[in-house]
């Protein structure tokens, strides 16, 4: 593990720096908004209640969902650091706001009346009496906000904002525990550090002075962040991907192919699920990502399922056009859903096809990722098509954890995809879709039309990958990452080089 970290030292430092910056900047903004707003609300108790309720509501939105909501919002939204900061500020606001209101309201009214009676102006009373007396409570709120932010900031990686979550998501996507820990442990240490630091300030006999120092620190961090912003220039092509191994590899393949053809590329990989990627490419936050025809058909365009690959492709192209999107040519493999079991179980019971499951369904524990439960071409249709009834409700888990759960015997059947590398590596069995329930899932690049206009030759460059990746190649690459813990970028380059695609 130490060697693993040592190898990644410079990247780890960079991600930690991004993480600290995210937290500092968002905490700074949250304080700048929350404390004055809290002071104003403390004087208007009738207004304080609804505003606090609203802040409370923002707090309850799951962070990934909040990031999703923010993507299409102009100015503050999109993908990247800015959106992450907006979301983190929303999360940090409540504790700061609430503690400011509480802190001010708990100041002894007798002390306030004495202060007024001595001839303090309202401003002097605030500065000399109320703020100093409320400060420990306000600081407690800032402390909570900072610690929560350190945790939430890991999720910011899902929208390409960087930070230690990058390792966590990459690790989850590639089933690499070391990578997950490499992100999670520093994040936990950061949270403890922030907690201890602010706790010391809170207990210090001169909290005022410590607050000034912290504010200076935050201001310096914001300054550095502003200076460090990449200078303007020709915009690189932005390639996105969803948050599982195959998508990351495909993102790297697209990226490396474009670079081989002379494009500058900005990779925003591991961007959460389908909805997030679709929103991002529609808004032009990313220029292209790889989608699957069946997913586009049912999940994005909400069209009925069809077993005919050519028909699906036609409907997808027609559906995308009014959205300002272009569906490219299929890359060459069909990543259909796959119901996967341990070989011993399947052989023991003679299960080969999905329809064989009917007799055993009541006793099987199913693991799947959340998206599949919701999708039109997912669980509900599958149950109908095969007349299946499972005894236990399916367990939702991250894509990256499914096979581990299957191998560990925590579940008996998982819903994965046909190109999952671990199927071969773990000697698992894919059940045949004998009633042709799943539509074709041909992988193809989805591009924003505006981006194609802006980047001459981009369409041709991506089309050069058409038909070049078959199921076997994809499964092999997936296994190289999931099973052999190799880096997706290396695997992608190796594939392109083998296929003669690393040169013009």
């Amino acid at each position, binding site marked *: 593990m130490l060697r693993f970290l040592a190898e990644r030292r410079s990247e780890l430092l960079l991600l930690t720096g991004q993480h600290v910056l995210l937290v500092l900047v968002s905490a700074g903004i949250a304080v700048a908004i929350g404390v004055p707003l809290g002071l104003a609300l403390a004087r208007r108790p009738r207004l304080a209640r609804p505003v606090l309720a609203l802040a409370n509501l923002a707090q309850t939105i799951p962070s990934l969902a909040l990031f999703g909501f923010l993507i299409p919002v102009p100015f503050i939204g999109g993908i990247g650091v800015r959106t992450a900061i907006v979301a983190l500020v929303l999360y940090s606001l409540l504790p700061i706001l609430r503690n400011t209101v509480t802190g001010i309201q708990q100041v*002894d009214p*007798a*002390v306030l*009346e*004495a*202060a*007024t*009676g*001595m*001839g*303090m*102006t309202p401003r*002097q009373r605030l500065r*000399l*009496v109320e703020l*100093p*007396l409320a400060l420990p409570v306000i600081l407690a709120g800032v402390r909570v906000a900072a610690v929560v932010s350190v945790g939430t900031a890991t999720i910011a990686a899902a929208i390409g904002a960087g930070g230690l979550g990058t390792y966590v998501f990459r690790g989850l996507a590639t089933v690499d525990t070391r990578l997950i820990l490499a992100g999670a442990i520093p994040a936990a240490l950061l949270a403890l550090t922030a907690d201890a630091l602010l706790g010391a300030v809170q207990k210090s006999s001169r909290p005022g002075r410590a607050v000034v120092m912290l504010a200076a620190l935050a201001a310096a961090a914001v300054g550095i962040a502003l200076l460090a912003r990449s200078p303007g220039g020709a915009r690189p092509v932005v390639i996105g991907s969803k948050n599982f191994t195959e998508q990351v590899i495909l993102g790297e393949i697209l990226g490396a192919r474009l670079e081989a053809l002379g494009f500058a590329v900005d990779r925003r990989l591991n961007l959460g699920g389908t909805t997030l990627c679709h929103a991002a490419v529609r808004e032009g936050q990313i220029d292209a990502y790889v989608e699957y025809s069946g997913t586009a058909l049912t999940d994005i365009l909400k069209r009925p399922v069809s077993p005919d690959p050519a028909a699906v492709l036609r409907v997808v192209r027609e559906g995308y056009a009014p959205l300002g999107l272009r569906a490219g040519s299929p890359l060459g493999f069909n990543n259909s859903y796959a119901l996967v079991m341990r070989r011993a179980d399947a052989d023991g019971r003679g299960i080969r096809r999905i329809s064989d499951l009917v007799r055993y369904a009541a006793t099987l524990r199913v693991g799947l990722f959340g998206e599949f439960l919701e999708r039109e071409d997912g669980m509900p249709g599958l149950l109908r098509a095969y007349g299946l009834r499972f005894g236990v409700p399916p367990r939702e888990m991250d894509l990256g954890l499914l096979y581990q759960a299957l191998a560990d015997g925590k579940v008996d059947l998982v819903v994965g995809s046909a190109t999952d590398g671990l199927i071969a590596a773990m000697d698992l069995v894919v059940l045949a879709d004998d009633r042709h329930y799943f539509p074709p899932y041909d992988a193809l690049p989805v591009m924003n039309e505006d981006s194609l206009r802006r980047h001459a030759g981009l369409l041709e460059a991506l089309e050069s990958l058409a038909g070049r990746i078959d199921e076997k190649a994809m499964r092999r690459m997936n296994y190289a990452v999931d099973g052999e813990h190799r880096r997706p970028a290396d695997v992608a380059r190796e594939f392109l080089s083998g296929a003669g695609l690393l040169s013009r």
Partner: protein
Amino acid sequence: MTAAVELAGVHKRYPSGAVALDGLSLSVDEGRVLVLLGTSGSGKTTALKTVNRLVEADGGSIVVLGRPLDSWDPIELRRRTGYVIQEAGLIPHFSVERNVALVPELLGWPLARRVARSRELLALVGLDPARFAPLRPAQLSGGERQRVGIARALAADPPLLLMDEPFGALDPLTRHRLQDEFRGLQSKLGKTVLLVTHDVPEAFRLGDEVAVMDRGRVLQRGTPAQVRDSPLPGFVADFIAAARP
């Protein structure tokens, strides 16, 4: 002799509808101590607070230090008026020294002068400056806090002191001693004092004159001897009698 404070026909009704002052009239001559004596709810504290505009009267006329109340900027007025309240109302995170010199600080006195004044006043109210100046209010006894409260009220040498149950929260012994000290202090300083209390013996000990209040009006006013020896029949007589041991 001129009146330092004069209220004429002052009314005050709180938003709850309670009538606190019902045409109150009274005056305090310069250099004299007038005690407002009454039960809780009699309007005596409200009357006091109309003088430094912590409470705005609804009607009637108030003249303070020779000027109608409206012509005073409330902030300036309060800085010219010493204010002492029950439990002292000291600023908890300020040292004793800074608490005492609070009004001078607000008036912008230089630090050295504030420190000197603070020490002078601590000595005046019987607290050793070397020992007490750096302490926080929480480190003091109730009696010590009240002394600091009086020192604070005197810090900018205001001509007028408003005192709201200044010794109310003290044990009888300490209260007695502080009352004596207040009398000694007052004979030296000769301030105009408006003091509110519900304690009959205290009123008689401290007041040059006593005004007995009930339901927002003064029922009887006179020297302590007059009020004690010939209270008006009815409320005043009952109230005075009830306090006799």
